[in-house]
């Protein structure tokens, strides 16, 4: 019955459908795995390698997701919301990066205050994980995908446990486990997406051009 239709829900459902392909899950998992591997192996460049995979992700979305779901221009209100959320994420990332630079300068010049030294030794992992979890939770709120909240909790817990295992040099293991869980989840979602949304027949593709 037409009057049961909630247009706001339809719009949200449409917007959310563009995040049900699992690719963002896979990318987030790869970042976690990159961080975990960097911690375990000491090879910091692995983080940069994983970040560069963002380019591959974008290509995948263009080639795999959009031809299956179709192209849509969301309403100006939705575009504004997305821009605001992106801005918040960029500000948080910039703040985190600046904080990292400040810490690097303090530690490299042996200028670390006593309280900060103690905090870094005891709570660094939990804080770092907390910031990452916050970013994921913000994404969950903006996009409205509830499983991202679970990912945020998983990220935070893995870093807290990692911090507790620092004395045993096993701090990277919980992060690798969390990354693996999210990777499997993303892979399952991607598989389901590809089955649910096959490529449209050629006559539609050519007719729509």
């Amino acid at each position, binding site marked *: 019955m037409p009057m049961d239709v909630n247009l706001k829900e339809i*719009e949200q459902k449409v917007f959310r459908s563009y995040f049900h392909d699992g690719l963002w899950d896979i990318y987030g998992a790869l970042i976690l795995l990159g961080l975990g591997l960097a911690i375990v192996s000491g090879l910091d460049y692995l983080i940069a390698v994983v970040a560069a995979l963002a380019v591959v992700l974008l290509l995948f979305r263009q080639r795999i997701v959009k031809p299956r*779901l*179709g192209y*849509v221009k969301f309403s100006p209100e939705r575009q504004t919301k997305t821009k605001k959320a992106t801005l918040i994420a960029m500000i948080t990332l910039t703040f985190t990066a600046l904080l990292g630079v400040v810490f690097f300068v303090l530690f490299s010049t042996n200028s670390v205050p006593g309280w900060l030294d103690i905090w870094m030794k005891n709570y660094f992992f939990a804080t770092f994980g907390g910031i990452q979890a916050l970013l994921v939770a913000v994404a969950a709120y903006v996009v409205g995908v509830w499983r991202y909240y679970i990912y945020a909790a998983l990220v935070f817990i893995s870093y807290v446990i990692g911090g507790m295992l620092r004395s045993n040099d096993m701090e990277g293991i919980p992060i690798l486990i969390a990354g693996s869980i999210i990777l499997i989840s993303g892979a399952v979602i991607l598989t389901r997406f590809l089955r649910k949304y096959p490529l449209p027949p050629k006559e539609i593709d050519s007719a729509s051009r």
Partner: protein
Amino acid sequence: MPPGSERDREAKLSTNVDRLIHEPARFNIMAYLFVVQSADFTFLLTQTGLTWGNLSSHINKLETAGYVAVEKEFIGKKPHTMLHLTNKGRLAFDEYRNSMKQVLENLPNQLRLK
């Protein structure tokens, strides 16, 4: 039947509804286009679950009525056919929703069957 009777009034209420939009498939198409700025055929196919032929037929009717506009755009380097509701279409959809709301609100809350 005397003029202005209740039966006469109810018949008038039901005929105020836009029959072009009232068809369920076309209503779905209009609803999905209403909540976005524009979208292509594949989007409507996946969201409405209609077949290609069915969708094409309904789009033609809506385009003929001036409710939907079909335009070619370039996305990257590839031409793409995008659909969007015209101002007339958005107004018609809003009026349809309001008239349906009026019809349903005027119905009695409960029918007693003897």
